[in-house]
């Protein structure tokens, strides 16, 4: 019986020690000088469905659309930590094109940010498009991004500026079938500013450390471009959106509501 008692006592000890936790190790860490990388994974969908090229998706007013091009510009990415401090990614590198064409086999487009200050981040803020300050740097001040934007078809002329989002395809309504659909929304020079910023809270704290490269999975709901804050109809002129002040403004507002952080991975 003695052996038994010892066995049980040992088991009990093991169980109890297993269950005691040493939490909050992260809150007292010294993070100064530490940096890490953080990846934003953009994942385009239409409602609960994954986005696929040349696939017909229904919207309001019995209209539908098919797209062959889905691209948008993301810039001025910054993170807010649990103390309220903001880390802004270096401006010259802080502009990206999310192109569905560049997606991996799961349709995710990665933006990897290196040398991010180590911290416990609680939210991300980014702009859709190019703000006036960056545009004011002139063609020379755009660095390599100007060539990239040109190559991706995200520019009008320099004077007119960048296309913040580019959707190309066809649409169908109760009266027309497969007519051309082109949404090229941007600011127009310095006369019309459609740049908008989005702040998304993280469902779990994102821990950036030298040895941890967290990933933030952002879902972008393309349906919201047309059925976002405002529902618009192709039949009412939203089949061709270019530089018009009214239609581009509404599309810009809708786009700023299409993002959500679905989840994060701390690895």
């Amino acid at each position, binding site marked *: 019986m003695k052996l*038994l008692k010892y*066995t049980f006592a040992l088991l009990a000890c093991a169980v109890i020690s*297993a269950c005691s936790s040493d939490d909050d190790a992260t809150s007292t860490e010294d993070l100064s000088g530490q940096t890490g990388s953080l990846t934003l994974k953009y994942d385009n969908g239409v409602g609960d469905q994954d986005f696929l090229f040349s696939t017909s998706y229904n919207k309001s007013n019995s209209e539908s659309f098919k797209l062959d091009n889905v691209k948008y510009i993301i810039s001025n990415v910054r993170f807010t930590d649990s103390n309220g401090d903001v880390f802004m990614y270096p401006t010259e590198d802080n502009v990206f094109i999310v192109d569905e064409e560049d997606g991996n*086999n799961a349709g995710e487009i990665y933006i990897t940010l290196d040398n991010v200050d180590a911290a416990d981040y609680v939210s991300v803020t980014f702009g859709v498009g190019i703000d006036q300050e960056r545009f004011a740097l002139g063609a020379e001040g755009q660095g390599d991004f100007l060539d990239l934007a040109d190559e991706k078809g995200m520019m009008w002329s320099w004077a007119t500026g960048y296309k913040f989002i580019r959707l190309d395809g066809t649409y169908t309504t109760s009266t027309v079938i497969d007519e051309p659909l082109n949404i090229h929304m941007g600011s127009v020079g310095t006369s019309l500013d459609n740049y908008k910023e989005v702040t998304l809270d993280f469902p779990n704290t994102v821990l950036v450390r030298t040895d941890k490269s967290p990933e933030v*999975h952002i879902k972008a709901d393309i349906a919201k471009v047309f059925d976002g804050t405002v529902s618009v109809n192709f039949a009412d002129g939203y089949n061709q959106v270019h530089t018009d002040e009214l239609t581009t403004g509404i599309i810009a507002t809708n786009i700023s509501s299409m993002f959500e952080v679905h989840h994060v991975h701390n690895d």
Partner: protein
Amino acid sequence: MLFLGFAKAEAHSLKSPCTTHQPLQVLCDLCGCSTSSGSFGFGTLSNANFVGVRYIYQNFESRNGIFEDSPLSKETFNTYQVWAQIPINDSFYVTASLPYQDLTRDFNNIKENLNGIGDANIIGWYKHVFYKKEDETVINFSGEKIASGHSLQFGLGVKLPTGEFEQRLTDNINPGFQVGTGSVDGIFSVGYNYGSDTFGVNTLLSYYLKGENKNDYQFGDQFSYAVNFFTAIPKEKMNIMPFVGLSGDRYDTITQYGETLKDTDGSILNASIGTELAIEKFIFGASYTLPVSQNLFGENVQSKQRLSLYVNFAL
């Protein structure tokens, strides 16, 4: 080979956290690591002492993405386990198991394999046997009490991190795609058995208090339950014991860095059918298990089926 069986199908559990997150990753404990849990059973129908080997085949489907139509990956788990129930005296015994895990994940025809020693567990049991009341009008010449067939078992044990836990795999939707949880878990069990010459019932309730592993990753606590009904058909050279059972598991949410992760809890209810065959000192068992209802990891993981085969040598 059809004879191998499942031992008591006590609760088939999927352990929970097997998947983790990608958005939904979920499952780890659920799968690979859970094969040692109560829902899979700790022993044979007759509660005999034995040493033996058990093979468990399971498969799962996990949604690999955040959308309803995201592509599925298929996970196949092969577990080879050495297990035993060793008596200490009339009232106490120990059950133990050590698995070897061979896990395969097939996504877009790309196969990923993971294998190695899994998590061992050891549980000490106290068995309380109920005896028939003495009938004072009958003189019992033997002087021995007569067992009523009813018994209770109380188990206290640990699951040890003998399997390797790989943090990178937690990005899979199925958190269960791990050979080990990396944690020391406490196991608390209570069972009730009834057995007569022709019929028996085994029930088992188990609670797993999950510890945190070195990666600050903690699978959710798990509650497993199982009930099996069996009958005995004596033949000339063997004893056939067919059984049917229900078992299930409930998993709490996975915690990482002190925060809970969404879509990492779940539950599953399984139905099993199987048989044991006792030939001299050998017990062969086989069982087949299908899920009756499940909601695992935000419905991103689906358990498809499970097959268990075993051969035990009675001590």
